[in-house]
């Protein structure tokens, strides 16, 4: 941790700040999430640091609670997509043959449908709960992770050390988790940073379209939707969630870069 670069430090700081904010939202937020405390679109003041929203709720509090929802959904969906996608990808690479064919063609099929449309169709026929949202987003994104994991694992699978493990008589579980996974971690971690941000954007998009998080529950996409009309009158309330998303995206990727550098130098790579 000593020779940490400025970029990585900033990234770590902001990422940590966002996650802590999400975790302790009720303690930090000055007002309740759905509490109407003032007039419509009041400007920033001592009372309301970022002003109020379209129906007079404190915007800062909405943002903090919205971050909690958005980050929670994005994190859970990312974890789901990575555990599912990478394990299936590794399995396809190790097994080869018809298992690989079946999984890969199924994934191709899913990927050939634009994921936003697919999600819209699924969510319009299913009850929109947080659980369903996470499930749909995680499954759709698992296809991307599967592709990457399979490609990386196919390369690793032909290494002599994997052959040595096979000849020793090791089972698939050992080969996947002990031989392949540690060596595939670097590209996966890098991808994880990116995927997490796509998840944030995805859930925000869904909410903006009205099929994501349902009001009065706050989330960043929802806040944009609620305050979008204000832009016409020169009210910037809808821009704050965008600022939050951009800051989070940059800092998470700085952290991913930092982790990547550290892990590659472990095997003697060029830091």
């Amino acid at each position, binding site marked *: 941790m000593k*020779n940490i670069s400025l970029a990585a430090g900033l990234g770590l700081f902001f990422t940590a700040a966002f996650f802590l904010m999400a975790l302790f939202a009720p303690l930090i937020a000055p007002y309740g999430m759905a509490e109407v405390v003032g007039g419509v679109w009041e400007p920033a003041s001592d009372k309301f640091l970022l002003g109020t929203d379209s129906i007079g709720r404190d915007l800062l509090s909405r943002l903090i609670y919205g971050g909690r929802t958005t980050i929670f959904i994005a994190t859970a969906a990312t974890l789901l997509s990575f555990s599912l996608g990478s394990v299936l990808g590794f399995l396809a690479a190790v097994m080869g043959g018809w298992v690989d064919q079946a999984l890969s063609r199924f994934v191709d099929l899913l990927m050939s449908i634009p994921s936003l449309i697919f999600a819209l169709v699924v969510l319009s026929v299913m009850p929109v709960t947080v659980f369903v949202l996470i499930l749909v987003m995680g499954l759709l994104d698992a296809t991307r992770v599967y592709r990457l994991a399979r490609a990386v694992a196919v390369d690793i699978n032909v*290494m*002599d*050390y994997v*052959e*040595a493990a*096979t*000849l*020793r*008589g*090791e089972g698939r579980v050992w080969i996947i988790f*002990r*031989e392949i996974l*540690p*060596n595939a971690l670097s590209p996966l971690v890098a991808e994880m940073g990116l995927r997490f941000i796509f998840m944030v954007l995805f859930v925000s998009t869904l909410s903006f379209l009205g099929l994501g998080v349902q009001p009065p529950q706050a989330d960043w996409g929802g806040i944009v939707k609620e305050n979008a009309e204000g832009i016409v009158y020169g009210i910037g309330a809808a821009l704050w969630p965008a600022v939050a998303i951009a800051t989070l995206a940059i800092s998470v990727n700085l952290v991913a870069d930092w982790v990547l550098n550290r892990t590659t*130098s*472990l*095997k*003697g*790579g*060029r*830091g």
Partner: protein
Amino acid sequence: MSEPLLKVRDLKIGATVYPPGQKPHDIEIVHGVSFDLQPGKVLGLIGESGAGKSTIGLASMAYGRGGVRITGGEVWVNGRDILQTSAGDVKRLRGGEVTYVSQSAAASFNPAKRILEQVVEAAVRHGKLSRKQAEAKAILLFEKLGLPDPANIGKRYPHQVSGGQLQRCMTALALCPDPDLVVFDEPTTALDVTTQIDVLMAIKEAIRDTGVAAIYITHDLAVVAQVSDDIMVLKMGETVEYGPTDQIINAPREEYTQALVSVRSIQHEEKAPTPDPVLRVSGVTARYRGLSFDVLKDVSVDVHPGQTLAVVGESGSGKSTLARAITGLLPPSAGRIEFAGRTLSPDQPSRSKEDLRELQMIYQIADVAMNPRQTVGTIIGRPLEFYFGLRGAEKRKRIKELLDEIEMGDGFIDRYPAELSGGQKQRVCIARALAANPKLIICDEVTSALDPLVADGILKLLLNLQKIEDVSYLFITHDLATVRSIADSIAVMYQGAVVRYGPKSEVLAPPFDDYTDLLLSSVPEMRLGWLEEVIATRKMESAGN
């Protein structure tokens, strides 16, 4: 004495290293090397990997590869210091006055362009010849280098000619702009022995006929002795010995040079075959899926307990495929494999744990044979845990014993493979194989990626371990010097079939069949004039031509 073409004075070269867990820092890799090269002469640079020989060769083009920087000294070419000259002048120098032939021609040619186009490029770009003249010259060079159909071979793409031919095309490429100096960087190392001598002879004649000066870089003293006038022996970026070839070969002064000259002089008494071989391969035939021909044809060999069978052949002869058939990775289409009195099932997944344990394997490239994310302790400890259920202190004790056996201390137990040298890595792989307490170890070219002195150490270790553990080896190699030092019996393979098989003394004694003769005569010998003798007397053309 006339002014030398190339004059190197106190050359120092540095690089930045990135050790794991430490701050990057600068190190010096060449510490003040000086030499002269007269026009038309050949200087051999020889040393182990890391000796700085390629780096010095490239410095004569004022070039540092992969973050390497020339930090001091002078390099004079044709009367000017090229480290001080202008960028435009360096451009004229590279590819014009000094050209370069790399180890892997296959990786150096652009696969999307025809050979001729690439061969004439430098001469045309430097304005030395018109395209027409350059093409005529290239065809002349193809002819001189002994390439078949010189008028048309340039119209082919790089993948359409063999490795040996491509290496000659690269020599033509280097000679086409009429340079004053050519740097040959291990030009024959990647080739089969039988192909190597043809390419070597072609290079030697081309150098003689064109009167070009050359730096010839290699790790094989016997090879460099055939082509160079002077030899410089390097070690860790320093000159060990520098003198005429005759003196270096016949009267080396330094201890290190003497060791290089006398390498591979291990003596191994052949043991008599026993009635019960530990491995009996009978009539094995195999092919890869999608191929229309058999890669192994009716192969039958025995390995006796506590003895070594060497399987010799060029690349493509099927020797590694034999190992895959025995280990069950490529189930044979016909034939039987008996091991320790039982018949082995043809495919690996259906073999018992006992079968797997008693048949271990060591690979050519130790780097990729060990998981870079596991420590030495994990690598060696896993077979102990997997086969014998050893845990905790008991396991650690056995790992330490094994590390002792391979002559490495227990200080290595928590290191990662990246922190080991090439020889140490191979030793760890040997320890991993030994940990299973096997009856037979298949060694697939285990010394060919190593420097001669390191390889020597590994062979000695293997012989020693054979005495202690009474393990048998199936030793796959293309190197006959290795075979002489460790085998009890030998199988010579050619195009998937065993062409000669028997005890070492019989296989290596005349009368020879044509292929064995070619193979035996192609092993470079450490004496002057050997190359010409071989070319004049051999019976069969190498397949790689």
